[in-house]
């Protein structure tokens, strides 16, 4: 459905996307996971045919975005990172007017707009001004707007960045429903929990390149242990304590504020730490996450 080979994007001297390959199948939820500045948004814009590529091959819905931008955009739903809503129009008009940009008939667009308001749980805000909506509502309206042309694929750039936890869950619920209905979702995120929840398959990107690919669980199995022990000794003592922990678990990561011990059995690792006479201020055993995968692959955290 969407296929890239050696896709590159260069702005002057800066290489935003440095030769990436990926293939997105119909009906799947595909994620680009990486920190800010990894080239995720640029990739999305190239897929959406709103940005040109410097080199490489890109096929979107069977077209080359370079030559068939309007054809591709006609079949995509785009949810940009910053909600670009039309603040001069009311909530319902945002949907209707946007639908008309696609050349859809007015009576159809009007009916469809009401359905999508219902889907976005915004029916009560039908006549409201856009600038009065909460962040979560704006994002849901942007998603509803992206659905007005019944797209073959939805492109969501950082769909829940900047939202509070409750608003995120409402949004995830809506995206799950789309997924169940068979809509292809392509999303970027720097939240590992979001990637784990929503993505069937994802690529981990860093500095414009893909460093790993797979399903969230497969990536965790491949690049991390089942469990992780997090211990804190206070920022000045972490490094020293880490030396004494050496040998426990299969791998150790020292972060500025804590030490991570990778072991399939976190409780056993904790017991081993105590046996060496170390008394961490706090300790916690958790399951491995994509955050650990990213740390392993790049030596850095996702959110810096």
């Amino acid at each position, binding site marked *: 459905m969407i296929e890239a080979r050696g896709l590159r994007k260069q702005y002057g001297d800066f290489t935003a996307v440095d030769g990436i390959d990926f293939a997105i199948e119909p009906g799947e939820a595909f994620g680009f996971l990486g920190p800010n500045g990894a080239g995720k948004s640029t990739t999305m814009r190239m897929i*959406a*045919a*709103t*940005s*040109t590529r410097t080199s490489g091959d890109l096929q979107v819905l069977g077209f080359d975005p370079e*030559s*068939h*931008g*309007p*054809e591709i*955009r*006609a*079949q995509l739903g*785009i949810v*940009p990172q*910053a909600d*670009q*809503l*039309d*603040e*001069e*129009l*009311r909530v319902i*008009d945002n949907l209707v*007017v*946007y639908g*008309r*940009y*696609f*050349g*859809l*008939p007015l009576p*159809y667009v009007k*009916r*469809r707009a009401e*359905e999508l308001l219902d889907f976005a749980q915004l029916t009560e805000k039908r006549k409201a001004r856009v600038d009065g909506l909460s962040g979560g509502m704006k994002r849901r309206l942007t998603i509803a707007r992206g659905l007005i*042309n*019944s797209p*073959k694929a939805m492109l969501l750039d950082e769909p829940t960045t900047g939202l509070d936890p409750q608003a995120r869950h409402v949004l995830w619920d809506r995206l799950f429903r789309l997924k169940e209905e068979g809509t292809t979702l392509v999303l970027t995120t720097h939240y590992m929990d979001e990637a784990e929840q929503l993505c069937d398959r994802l690529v981990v990107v860093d500095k414009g390149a893909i460093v790993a690919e797979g399903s969230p669980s497969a990536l965790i199995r491949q690049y991390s242990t089942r469990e992780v022990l997090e211990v804190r000794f206070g920022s000045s003592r972490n490094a020293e304590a880490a030396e004494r922990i050496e040998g426990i678990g299969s791998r150790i990561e020292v972060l500025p504020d804590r030490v991570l011990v990778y072991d399939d059995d976190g409780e056993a690792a904790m017991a081993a730490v105590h046996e060496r006479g170390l008394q961490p201020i706090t300790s916690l055993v958790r399951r491995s996450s994509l955050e650990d995968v990213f740390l392993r692959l790049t030596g850095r955290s996702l959110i810096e």
Partner: protein
Amino acid sequence: MTEQLLEAPAPTIRGPLRGLYAGNTRSVVARGLRVIARNNWLIVVTGFFEPVFYLLSMGIGLGALIGTVEFYGVDVPYAAYIAPALMAVSAMNGAVYDSTMNVFFKMNFAKLYQQMLSTSLGPLDVALGEILLALFRGLLYACGFMVVTSLMGLNLSWTAVLAIPAALVIAFGFASFGMAVTSYMKTFQHLDYVYFVMMPMFLLSATFFPIEVYPQGVQWVIQAMPLWHGVDMVRQLTTGLIQPSILLHLLYFAVMIVVGLWFTTARLKALFLR
């Protein structure tokens, strides 16, 4: 969701405009009209009064002192001499306000064109739609002004009715050029340059006195400016003293429209589809 869902129709434009134009300019115009209809009409009205005040103060006040001015060999009352010039100015004002201030805001703050260009619309649809809206405002000003001058008896010939389509042409030229220029602006201060150019053009383009008062070299400069062509064209129509040069004026604006449109389209593509 009971009914059949419609997919957006694929654009059918072929040839050199492929990818630039989807043939859906009307959706852009409809959006603009909806915004004007929903929000206050007052903003649209304010710019209309400036030339009316000039007409009242200079036409009636100064006109009493000046008497008549010669135009293509005929003596014309001063108020009737400046009225068509001010009508050309109001067409210009309407078009320029809309295609600079409003477009600048939509381009840089409201991100409206990014939104439009993430649909199947092409940059030419957006450019043409926005220019037509600016032109609409210029037309409104010109029509309002026409009513005022008619009531004051300043239209000397039946050909004055053609001043309305002429105003439309003027507004079209300024709107398409204005939007192209605006696409280069990065800060609000840059907008001041527009007024820095418009003010002298307004005062010097044979608006208040014949161009013959200048030395030949200055005349050429004035005649290179678009407003002079607009003023002379409308004045020929309202006085009924129509000259062959009106075709030249029309040609000038035709070129301005085409160049402005082409530039705006290219700039929108460069800014938002890069």
